[in-house]
């Protein structure tokens, strides 16, 4: 294992400074990202300034892609919807994720049961996305199980159509998928909190709410940050779920980029990708200001 080799074998201890050791350890990942992501990104950046037509990019300076991006109503619409999805999904997965993580960490007393429940939450994550998407129609569709139940209980006389192929459906699928990383990240941070601390606070007369607010929250900030990075990047980068669940009737930033790529119009897709990237990196930067996850790792 490369990690073992680069983790400074004893006889080299004096030779290898910690900095060099870190560089060696991170090198494989850095090389792969540079080769496979940053170089393509550089190509994408250059392409965004070029003229194009019918799957062809001409080596002529053309700023139209950028001008359209910064001046059109479409951009505003795309980002308004994308941010709306991000905000709703983040709030719901955060609340849901916290409740579940808290329950698993502080209420479930058996370690084996806790692991089993964690596994149960994680397993659907390992079923292929396309397969999972197809399975929503039998559930949420016009003649799906939920509508049959609603009509069977005489709650509605006509099938509810906004359950599927709608913004609602997109949100349902996002929440279904992205609660798991939130739970995992927060539960992990919670596991670091000694039960004795909680017990001491309880003995001192603190209520459950006070314990959550004053002890748990400050301590799980890194978990919240990592979970949020997962959720934000997943929603902002998604094209698949939004397409399947809205029946291609909703347009987000990601969808728009893919529509252009499918029409082989690389420059406008490139410009849009770069703006999207800058925005997501800024959000992640802000999240790290809230809790520097990397500082947590350092001794």
């Amino acid at each position, binding site marked *: 294992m490369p990690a073992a080799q680069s983790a400074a074998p004893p006889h080299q201890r004096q030779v290898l400074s910690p900095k060099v050791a870190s560089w060696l350890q991170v090198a494989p990942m850095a090389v792969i990202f540079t080769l496979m992501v940053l170089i393509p990104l550089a190509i994408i950046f250059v392409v965004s300034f070029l003229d194009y037509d019918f799957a062809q990019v001409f080596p002529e300076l053309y700023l139209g892609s950028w001008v359209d991006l910064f001046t059109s109503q479409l951009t505003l619409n795309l980002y308004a919807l994308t941010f709306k999805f991000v905000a709703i999904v983040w709030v719901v997965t955060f609340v849901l994720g916290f409740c579940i993580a808290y329950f698993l960490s502080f209420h479930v007393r058996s370690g084996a049961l806790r692991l089993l429940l964690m596994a149960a939450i994680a397993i659907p994550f390992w079923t292929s996305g396309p397969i999972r998407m197809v399975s929503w129609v039998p559930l949420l569709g016009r003649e799906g199980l939920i509508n049959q139940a609603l009509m069977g209980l005489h709650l509605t006389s006509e099938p509810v159509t906004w359950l599927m192929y709608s913004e609602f459906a997109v949100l349902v699928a996002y929440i279904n998928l992205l*609660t798991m990383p939130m739970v995992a990240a927060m539960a992990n941070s919670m596991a670091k909190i000694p039960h004795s601390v909680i017990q001491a606070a309880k003995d001192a007369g603190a209520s459950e709410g006070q314990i959550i607010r004053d002890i748990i929250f400050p301590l799980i900030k890194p978990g919240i940050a990592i979970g949020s990075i997962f959720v934000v990047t997943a929603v902002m980068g998604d094209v698949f779920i939004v397409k399947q669940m809205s029946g291609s009737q909703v347009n987000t930033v990601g969808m728009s980029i893919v529509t252009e790529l499918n029409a082989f119009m690389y420059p406008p897709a490139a410009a849009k990708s770069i703006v999207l990237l800058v925005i*997501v990196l800024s959000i992640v930067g802000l999240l790290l200001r809230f809790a520097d996850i990397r500082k947590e790792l350092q001794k």
Partner: protein
Amino acid sequence: MSKPNPRRARPLSFYFLAAILSAFLLFLYAPMACVYILSFQGPTGGMSFPMQGWSTHWFQVLFSGDGQGVGDIGNAFRRSIRLAFVVAILTMAISLSAGMAYRRKFRGSNFVFYSAITSMVLPGIFVGFGIALMFNLLGWRTNWFTSGIGAQLTWTLPFGLLIMFIVLGRFNPSYEEAATDLGASARQRFTQVIVPIILPGIIGIAMAGLTSSYEETARTSLNIGTGNTMPMEVTGLLTAASTPVLFAIGTITTLFSFTLVIVSLIVMSRLAKRRQMRTAA
């Protein structure tokens, strides 16, 4: 860690949160249940209800691998599994190594971290296209072993790194300090203290790598060379057919994951017990 007394009465919040968890599990498994049920669709049935009888026909089709208008799915399945295992092992090794690096301050840590986020966010089709273009410009031929694995790593490594952050964030450095005080070398600290403690996380990375590799198409499809992976074959197939084979795959995947999880749980608890016994002795 001190264990709370199991016989203490449950507070009200316990029942409330237990209800939330149950509702969430129901929400999580409801569509999955449709997958499991539909995978036993009769030979004439399709990918939605109603069921046209019950059978294991689609599992047989999956394993016999040819005929019945399911394309080259058997070979695609094997290709994907092979690729997924290689990618999972690489993801595990590279992420573990990189994660260890982040336990110290070093220049360039921001660069690698934000590259990882970049890799997650850039539209997959574009990353894949860029890699293919680069190979073309350099005069290299794409194939699964070079460009294919590379393209998949751009997808799996960011997850691996973030999971390492989660795992190491939980790791209590006092264990390691204790080991150092006892005279353990760096290698001993790594193999005998750190790895055993973070093993579940490492396995988690491998699992995440395995499944995200198995699912990836946007980055893979242009860089895999001749011979489709499973999701590519499935996507291609869906343009021409509607077959519950997909659901059979979903059911198998779940069974496989469950088995993997349970086996690793058992192995881990055995290891933990043995270690306890050793320390006790």
